[in-house]
């Protein structure tokens, strides 16, 4: 019986160490970066998020969608309305049907979601050798230790070790599950020219992109952090007051008073 066999094994091994997790399969532990949005007072770095938007637009958006992100959301990372209208107008989206019942297209407006690079998943796969580039709207929240993971993945491309069996068209990246990823290394030094003159190193671009994608995944982060401080201060004071009230109200009980004798 399996159970008996298991007990036998356990007795043989004694207090055996817990089986190691299959680290290679799950991907290497991400590098830890000190992000501006970490911690209770954490905020987005607006300049960095704006640069990240530029990287997304010029590099990532050729394959990856951002379906939950609307152009108007860019106000939160410091763009004004006129600039947002201009950004949106660079894209064409589906319009209403015209008077003859034919489909039309129109320039995107701030209310529109960022248009997907492919009309559907099949088209996306066909253009990417069978691999489906995932939508990035929630990527930072959809992975363990998201911001560090995305950063590590972007800068973590390496040459495959000699004994590694890399699939055709695949790229070696130890931070990815199974260590091989269909996406070719997307970022190189000077891949974009930053409008604010920041040197566009690979690390810089990856950090900026993570700022932007964290904002896209969790637009309420900054508001949440700020409200949290107020709520905790309020609850803290309330709790202290309740504690003092309790001490005063309970005094006769502690002195042994009987509340039921006349």
């Amino acid at each position: 019986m399996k159970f008996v066999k298991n007990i036998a094994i356990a007795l043989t091994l004694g207090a055996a160490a817990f089986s190691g997790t299959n680290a290679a399969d799950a991907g290497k532990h991400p590098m830890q970066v000190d992000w501006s949005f970490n911690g209770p007072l954490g905020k987005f770095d607006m300049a960095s998020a704006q640069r990240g938007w530029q990287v997304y637009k010029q590099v990532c958006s050729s394959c990856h969608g951002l379906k939950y992100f609307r152009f108007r959301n860019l106000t939160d990372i410091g763009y004004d309305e006129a600039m947002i209208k201009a950004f949106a107008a660079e894209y064409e989206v589906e319009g209403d049907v015209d008077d003859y019942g034919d489909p039309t297209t129109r320039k995107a407006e701030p209310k529109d979601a960022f248009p997907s690079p492919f009309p559907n998943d099949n088209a996306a796969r066909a253009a990417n050798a069978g691999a489906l580039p995932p939508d990035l709207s929630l990527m930072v929240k959809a992975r363990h230790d998201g911001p560090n993971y995305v950063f590590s993945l972007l800068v973590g491309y390496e040459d495959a070790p000699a004994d590694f069996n890399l699939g055709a068209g695949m790229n070696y990246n130890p931070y990815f599950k199974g260590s091989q990823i269909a996406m070719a290394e997307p970022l190189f030094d000077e891949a974009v020219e930053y409008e604010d003159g920041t040197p566009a190193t690979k690390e810089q671009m990856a950090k900026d992109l993570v700022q932007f994608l964290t904002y896209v995944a969790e637009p309420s982060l900054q508001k949440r952090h700020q409200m949290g401080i107020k709520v905790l201060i309020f609850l803290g004071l309330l709790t202290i007051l309740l504690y003092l009230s309790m001490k005063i109200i309970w005094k006769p009980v502690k002195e042994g008073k009987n509340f039921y004798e006349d």
Partner: protein
Amino acid sequence: MAEWKAAKPENKALGWVEERLPILSLVNNVVGPDTPTPRNLNYWWNFGSLAGLMLVIQIISGVVLAMHYAAHTGIAFDSVERIMRDVNYGWLIRYMHANGASFFFIAVYIHIFRGLYFGSYKAPREVLWMLGVVIFLLMMATAFMGYVLPWGQMSFWGATVITGLFSAVPVVGESIVQLLWGGFSVDNPTLNRFFSLHYLLPFVIAGVVILHLWAKKISDSGNPLGIDVKSSADQIPFHPFYTVKDAFGAGVFFFVFAMFIFYMPNALGHPDNYIPADPLVTPASIVPEWYFLPFYAILRSIDFPLGIPGVFELIDAKLLGVLAMFASILVWLVLPWLDTSKVRSGNFRPMFKWFFAFLVIDMFILTWLGAQKPEGNIPLYGKFATLYYFAYFLVILPVLSRKETPLPLPESISNPVLKPAE
């Protein structure tokens, strides 16, 4: 036994209502100034009212979420993201509701284990305890269905695994599963009925909570010494003493709750649930929410049949696992008759104390095991942890009730001087 006192409100309008429907008396007699309560309740007694508060928070935040949520596989995930992005304070309401489920379970687990240690299940409180077990089962069903609603990867695959368990039931198993699914796989009809039931069950819970409080009124609160109230000197009015103490406890509890809502809202969730459900892609590991993990670990630990494997299987391994999982909670229903020791409080049971401490540790181990992949030695550890869990209720408590010599009990609550051992 508790006596009933009629409220006599000074306000005429209230008096008019009270004469026709004595609802003020009800409150008065259950958590009011006319509720004599043992004067020695410690902070472990705070968690009942906390659980009640969490139920209220869950219902209110849930009703608001339901105004914006769309129970359709095509748009459920999108509607949740809309709540997070476009609904005013939608992120706050959703994070309150998602973390609220966890904090509801934290309060209820502490409440249950307080009852286990201080013998709250013993006469005359058996029905009070059993109603609590019913509430816990309803909570588990509600929480499970709620987790399915965002229609992420864990929602879908969790629903597939858990509903699939019922297929282990002989003869009618497949029919039960099809009834739960509303078809032949987890799909739109499943989501619709889960949404409907997720909205219904909390009100059923609220109903059973009223019965739970009624039973509390009839049998009175227990207390840490586990002895009966001897005279009125042992008691104080619930209001204002325990209302203010519960309010202080709620302040501390909500402080921690708020830390999660505002600073680690996703710490208790699984990142995979931010990936839309995809019936074609199975997640690397399907892990239930933390509050199900101990029972999930018990389910997985039973990988052997009752009988001789492959030769004569009275109950096959899958069914035995499912039975063990349900039995691990249902055993609480008969607990009052398993532990027959006359002494209620663990404080006066020198051996019980240790076995209870191991049960608590065992629960933590089971929780941890439930989150691990069932590889290497994990299933083996699971078997030992499961064995202890059942042994505690089915063997240790019944034997201990007969063998253990309890410490001398105090004279009364108001005069807790130990009787000299004779």
